[in-house]
């Protein structure tokens, strides 16, 4: 029978399907960070249980780390320091590898998994973090879980899961210059809203997906959770294999070639059927900017901020009213007229080397507007080192950007990097929820190119019109 990629991976990982219970699925890779794991390790201790497979578990510190020059000092916030120290102790006690603050492999967990070659096609991957969907860009079934499930995976290397439905999201046509993976996923979420894909595993297909580089594919899969989906998937192909080859934990030599032959079999069979389909025409796509307080409230750069009366559903009307009030915006404002105070280029959505290269092309030879504070937090320490080797840091610094250390940083502001009330930020992250980047802070989600251009102009601009060197 013809199968989708999801069905192939799912069936390959069923450990047991006891009568009347959800399937028990084996987990190939468990990623751990400091915020959602301490209570899980503690529960194991209290019940006298062990980490079943420390060899399939890796951890790093990312959420709490300072990104400024206090990086190598003790974390000032005592509660954050305890959380980081607790992960260190838990890893030491259980034999789980930890990429700590002084490791080149340290970084945002969803950046380092692929970067180090842990993330591979056909795997099941979980993490106590909703953006685990990122890893689906490699054709692995990857999703976020809560702390009780983290405990379950630590103890049993399995997870109980009801089988989700499948949806194909097909991006037809070709992206225009200046239009990116971020714009593809923002527009797709805008189509059906933040609950539009709840209960589904989404597979992204179509010419525009095939032409994306791996960073772009990761951006797309990263934000599938913002549409409510359980996971996002993209079939692995030569782009995937070329990107993976030579990375630390990827098989080498003949073994790699053998693996590639197997990985190619993962792709959805021609006659396989999905439960739902959404099609998006990339020819018409323009750079997107979020105007509201959830990632479904987005619009094109050439358009105007909507008014509550533009919506029909009463819940959408009241959501828009609340969002506009919080964001300090009036319906009908031209998106290009929105002035910004801050720029954040970072996060597991858009802080990979490819993202930094794209942003640097916009920035090169230009200056950040005097009214704007612009910061770059690379996705990992390795990414930062690579960018410095390529001279990207110089381009950014000469333009007036702050060049910072890696970590989740202002995506969610668990470390000291936050907006102050009323500040408006062009952000390459994934969530524009109220207070996400700091209480009263106003977040507009955009691509790295759009964030860079906004930094220069002090307001949103259509990056398609820009000349780059």
């Amino acid at each position, binding site marked *: 029978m013809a199968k989708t990629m999801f069905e192939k991976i799912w069936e390959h990982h069923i*450990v*047991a399907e*006891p009568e*009347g*219970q959800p399937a*028990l699925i*084996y987990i190939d890779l468990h990623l751990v960070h400091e*915020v*959602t794991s*301490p*209570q899980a390790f*503690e*529960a194991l201790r209290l019940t006298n*249980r062990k980490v079943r497979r420390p060899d399939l578990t890796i951890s790093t510190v990312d959420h709490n780390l300072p990104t400024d020059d206090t990086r190598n000092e003790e974390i000032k*916030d005592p*509660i*954050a320091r*305890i*959380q980081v120290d607790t992960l260190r102790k838990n890893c030491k006690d259980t034999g789980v590898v930890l990429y700590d603050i002084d490791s080149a492999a340290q970084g945002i967990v969803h950046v380092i998994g692929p970067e180090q070659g842990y993330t*591979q096609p*056909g*795997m099941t991957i979980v993490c106590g*973090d*909703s953006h685990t969907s990122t890893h689906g860009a490699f054709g692995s079934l990857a999703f*976020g*879980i*809560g*702390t*009780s*499930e983290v*405990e*379950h995976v630590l*103890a*049993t*290397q*399995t997870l*109980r899961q*009801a089988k989700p439905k499948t949806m194909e999201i097909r991006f037809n046509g070709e992206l225009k210059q200046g239009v990116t993976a971020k714009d593809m996923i923002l527009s797709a979420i805008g189509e059906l809203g*933040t*609950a539009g894909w*709840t209960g589904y595993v989404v597979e992204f297909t179509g010419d525009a997906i095939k032409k994306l580089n791996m960073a772009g594919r990761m951006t797309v899969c990263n934000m599938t959770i913002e549409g*409510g989906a*359980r996971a996002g998937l993209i079939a692995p192909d030569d782009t995937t294999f070329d990107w993976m080859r030579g990375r630390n934990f990827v*098989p080498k030599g003949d073994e790699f070639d053998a*693996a590639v032959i*197997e990985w190619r079999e993962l792709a959805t069979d021609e006659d396989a059927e999905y439960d739902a389909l959404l099609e998006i025409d990339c020819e018409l796509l323009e750079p997107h900017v979020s105007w509201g307080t*959830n990632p479904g409230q987005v619009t094109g750069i050439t358009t105007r901020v909507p008014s509550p009366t533009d919506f029909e559903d009463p*819940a*959408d009307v*009241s*959501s828009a009213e*609340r969002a506009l009030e919080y964001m300090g915006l009036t319906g009908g404002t031209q998106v290009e007229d929105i002035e910004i105070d801050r720029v954040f280029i970072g996060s597991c959505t858009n802080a990979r080397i490819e993202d930094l290269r794209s942003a640097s092309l916009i920035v090169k030879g230009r200056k950040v507007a005097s009214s704007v504070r612009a910061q770059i937090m690379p996705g990992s320490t390795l990414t930062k080192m690579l960018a410095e080797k390529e001279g990207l840091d110089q381009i950014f610094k000469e333009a007036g950007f702050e060049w910072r250390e890696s970590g989740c940083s202002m995506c*969610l*502001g*668990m470390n000291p990097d936050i907006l102050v009330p009323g500040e408006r930020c062009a952000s390459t992250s994934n969530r524009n*929820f*109220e*207070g*996400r980047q700091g*209480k009263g802070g106003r977040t507009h989600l955009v691509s790295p190119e759009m964030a860079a251009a906004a930094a220069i102009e002090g307001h949103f601009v259509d990056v398609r019109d820009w000349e780059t060197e």
Partner: protein
Amino acid sequence: MEKFTKLTSIVAPLDRANVDTDQIIPKQFLKRIERTGFGEFAFFDWRYLEDGVPNPDFILNEERYVGANILVGGRNFGSGSSREHAPWALREMGFQSIIATSFADIFRSNCMQNGMLPVILSESEVDTVMARSLRGYGYKVTIDLESQTVTDDQGLNASFDVDPFRKNSLLEGLDDVGITMGLSEEIDLFEEKRTARW
């Protein structure tokens, strides 16, 4: 895990769609390494004014909803971050069940790992519960997990779906890890035949 069987309680209304877990428990409170201590910070930005006093305009601060163990919310409740701190905070605030037309997947699963019952009702049923709790003083419903019903004394008689496995776990107060440890032979067998890669 604590059992969930039958609950009769005042209903507190939160008539907003897409209440995300960043609102339920903001990030500055995620640094604790315990499962407790989150309740007082639930809905922090909405619930308190700058100086830390309760915001009189936030509906859950109204005296008539004090002691409510049931929350009725808008669609897509619990969207966003996977933080289990969100159900921990709600539970400590007193809520053992949430009624909505839809929930985000991870939040829903996290609730049921903590003896809390997310109840999905139809739009008209949620509207009814919302309207009655907004209008009245001391409006109560009864949620019966065994019969999978939500009832009140004004004629509401709604039924809801729940996964039979989850239902049993909640009724009996069983936690997943214990049940899965009983399948360790199956896991051993799987690992024997499992290959390093797909």
